[in-house]
């Protein structure tokens, strides 16, 4: 079995799962749909492992395979194949995506049990994973765009999964529109690449780029900036990030899937995949890195004040993606991908724990109303703590090693890149605070009524059919989460998924420890060998000094959170009151939504209104009505002739012939 064969199978299983569940939803019992969905992704993961094993048997330099099934589009001068490209980078992504997605499917199997749209959910979920795998495995830019757009659609479908909720449909539309902005950037970048290099194929493009482009030539910079528009929209970087927090309207496993394993990492993957272009356009790479840094800090500050449990975690995701974007933009490719992997573990886990708590709260997401879940839900709180420790980069957890590796590289590169190290550590401090703010407010303390009910009776609080966010009444027939809720404590599949992820979140970082082992870097390095930036290595001593600083900062952040939220629960409120302006500014998310509304949405609406009032009414209506009136008038005349009297037809006929005969007679004489 060749490597490509396994890669095609990776794509095939999720697609089959999605179509199979969608077509068989009447025949399949609920459990079967969930099992098929989970098994499809599990098989894809197994095929990914098989591909890994056969790649390991090859020479590290030769570990890339292109394979194509048939021509996708073949016209003059353009030859696009339905082809995949498998190398260490794409296989790495395949393993992370399928691995984490399998666990999320397993979790959903229990979590969504009482949902009306169980089949639909698994069909969408499989399609989502398929799209992401297509994006990752694509062998040319056209197929990349196809996967890219599929992911956008799948996220739309899943965010608006409870489609009778107005908030959910709005959030879905917002995500879709912003993603389309990114798609346009990506498509334009592909056009430019084709114009300059005459091919869409990865192999050709990356081989020709260094010969054709000189450093910082305008065309390559333009290509990179357009690629960045795509990457920023998908990866929720400033200023195209506003869809991500709103995407929390979807079911929690969706948040887990979008924010951990798939979708948001697509931008990071894109930058890593096209790193040769970014090496040729250092300006664009620096812009990417600074946007990543800005996102990292802005999102972390917003996460400090969010009262919505899932939204706070969503902002944390943005912030962590900021680290990855910084990493792959400044040249710390394998470190960025390493952080992508560890982040997938602990963020998926955090969302799962949050989902479990939200289920116990009957869909209420406001942390002001939560407390005391540590006693009520022991398993959930332990796993949440594991995820939180990894996110806060607690020493020896996975996030600790991966985050610091990016910052150590920035330090080793020196010059202005020191800024990234310094502000990155500041971001890490904020990360530790906001992570433990969530944990300290939700887990300890006097149990809230829902938690008390769980302790006393062992029953989960059941929801009334009202949307807790808006009070809107829910349609209980379609798109309804169901009155019954499922928590990890009472569902074995959910527990298994969370336990595996908790284990990985704690120890997943040990595969790459400075001076000890370098699994990820060794694996990925041949892909990035053509970038001169990989020559920079932080020395082992500096790496450990960096890790030491990281440990201190993480502990300081956790201590600060403790000081704020545990030692004296009145302190945050006092602080809020004293810094009212700052708090409002952060709570309104730096007014990004308002700014976009003012700068983009309102002008667009105004143009639309103008077009409707003036252009549509006068020009278009005039043209349409004018044509209609002309046709009506002419046909009226012709209708008068068709009076139904055979004899008058005969008269017309004869008169016509007589006229013609007369004409010819006169003109011939």
């Amino acid at each position: 079995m060749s490597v490509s064969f396994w890669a095609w199978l990776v794509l095939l299983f999720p697609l089959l799962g999605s179509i199979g569940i969608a077509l068989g939803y009447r025949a399949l019992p609920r459990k079967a749909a969930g099992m098929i969905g989970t098994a499809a992704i599990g098989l894809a993961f197994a095929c990914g492992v098989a591909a890994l094993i056969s790649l390991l048997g090859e020479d590290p330099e030769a570990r890339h395979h292109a394979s194509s099934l048939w021509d996708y589009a073949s016209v003059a001068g353009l030859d696009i194949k339905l082809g995949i490209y498998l190398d260490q980078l794409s296989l790495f992504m395949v393993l992370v995506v399928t691995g984490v997605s399998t666990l999320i499917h397993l979790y959903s199997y229990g979590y969504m049990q009482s949902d009306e749209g169980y089949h639909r959910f698994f069909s969408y979920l499989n399609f989502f994973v398929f799209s992401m795998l297509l994006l990752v495995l694509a062998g040319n830019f056209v197929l990349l765009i196809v996967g890219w757009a599929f992911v956008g659609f799948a996220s739309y479908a899943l965010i608006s999964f409870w489609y009778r909720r107005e908030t959910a449909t709005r959030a879905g539309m917002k995500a879709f529109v912003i993603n389309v902005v990114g798609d346009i950037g990506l498509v334009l970048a592909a056009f430019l690449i084709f114009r300059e290099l005459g091919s869409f194929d990865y192999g050709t493009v990356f081989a020709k780029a260094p010969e054709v482009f000189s450093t910082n030539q305008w065309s390559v910079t333009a290509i990179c900036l357009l690629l960045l528009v795509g990457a920023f929209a998908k990866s929720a970087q400033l200023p195209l990030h506003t869809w991500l927090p709103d995407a929390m309207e979807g079911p929690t496993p969706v948040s887990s899937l979008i924010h951990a394993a798939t979708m948001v990492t697509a931008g990071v993957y894109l930058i890593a995949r096209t790193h040769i272009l970014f090496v040729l356009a250092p300006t664009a790479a620096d812009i990417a890195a600074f946007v990543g840094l800005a996102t990292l800090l802005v999102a972390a500050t917003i996460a400090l004040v969010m009262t919505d449990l899932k939204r706070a975690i969503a902002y944390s995701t943005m912030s962590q993606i900021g680290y990855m974007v910084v990493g792959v933009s400044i040249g710390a490719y394998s470190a960025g991908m390493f952080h992508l992997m560890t982040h997938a573990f602990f963020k998926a886990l955090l969302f799962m724990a949050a989902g479990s708590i939200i289920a116990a709260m009957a869909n209420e997401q406001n942390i002001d109303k939560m407390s005391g879940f540590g006693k009520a839900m022991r398993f959930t709180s332990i796993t949440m703590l594991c995820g939180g420790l990894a996110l806060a980069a607690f020493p020896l957890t996975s996030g600790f090693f991966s985050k610091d590796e990016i910052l150590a590289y920035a330090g080793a590169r020196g010059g202005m890149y020191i800024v990234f190290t310094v502000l990155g550590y500041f971001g890490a401090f904020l990360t530790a605070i906001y992570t433990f703010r969530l944990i300290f407010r939700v887990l300890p303390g006097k149990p809230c009524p829902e938690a008390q009910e769980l302790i006393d009776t062992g029953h989960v609080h059941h929801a009334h059919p009202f949307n807790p966010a808006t009070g809107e009444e829910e349609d209980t027939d379609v798109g309804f989460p169901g009155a019954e809720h499922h928590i990890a404590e009472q569902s074995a599949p959910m527990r298994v998924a969370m336990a595996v992820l908790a284990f990985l979140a704690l120890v997943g970082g040990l595969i790459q420890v400075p001076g000890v082992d370098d699994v990820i870097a060794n694996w990925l390095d041949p892909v990035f060998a053509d970038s001169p930036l990989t020559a920079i290595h932080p020395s082992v001593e500096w790496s450990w000094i960096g890790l030491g600083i990281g440990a201190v900062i993480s502990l300081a952040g956790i201590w600060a959170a403790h000081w704020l939220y545990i030692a004296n629960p009145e302190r945050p409120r006092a602080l809020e009151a004293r810094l009212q302006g700052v708090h409002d500014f952060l709570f309104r998310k730096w007014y990004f939504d308002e700014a976009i509304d003012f700068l983009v949405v309102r002008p667009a609406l105004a143009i639309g209104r103008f077009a409707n009032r003036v252009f549509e009414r006068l020009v278009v209506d005039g043209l349409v009505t004018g044509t209609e009136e002309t046709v009506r008038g002419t046909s009226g005349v012709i209708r008068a002739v068709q009076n139904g009297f055979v004899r008058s037809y005969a008269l017309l006929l004869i008169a016509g012939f007589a006229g013609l005969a007369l004409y010819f007679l006169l003109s011939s004489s």
Partner: protein
Amino acid sequence: MNITWYIVLSSLLFATGVLGILLRRSPMVILLCLELMLNAGNLALVAFSRMVGNEQGQVFAVIVMVIAACEVVVGLGLIVAIFRRRLPLNVDDLRELRG
């Protein structure tokens, strides 16, 4: 014999046919008048053929007769159909297809 007389006769027959079609309302008579027009044409064809001295005109006349026979078949068929459905045998009353 001068050809003029033949042409005059043919024209008179043709004009009779035209007037019959334009003025009469019975489909039967209209059909007869059509025949009259066709035969007026035939007469002219045969006359010209004699004048020119070859048989082409006569061949055309035979073809016209065939066509006339076909037309009569269709026309009479229509009339029988109209009669059977108890519709009025008056072309002015059969005007459902007006625009």
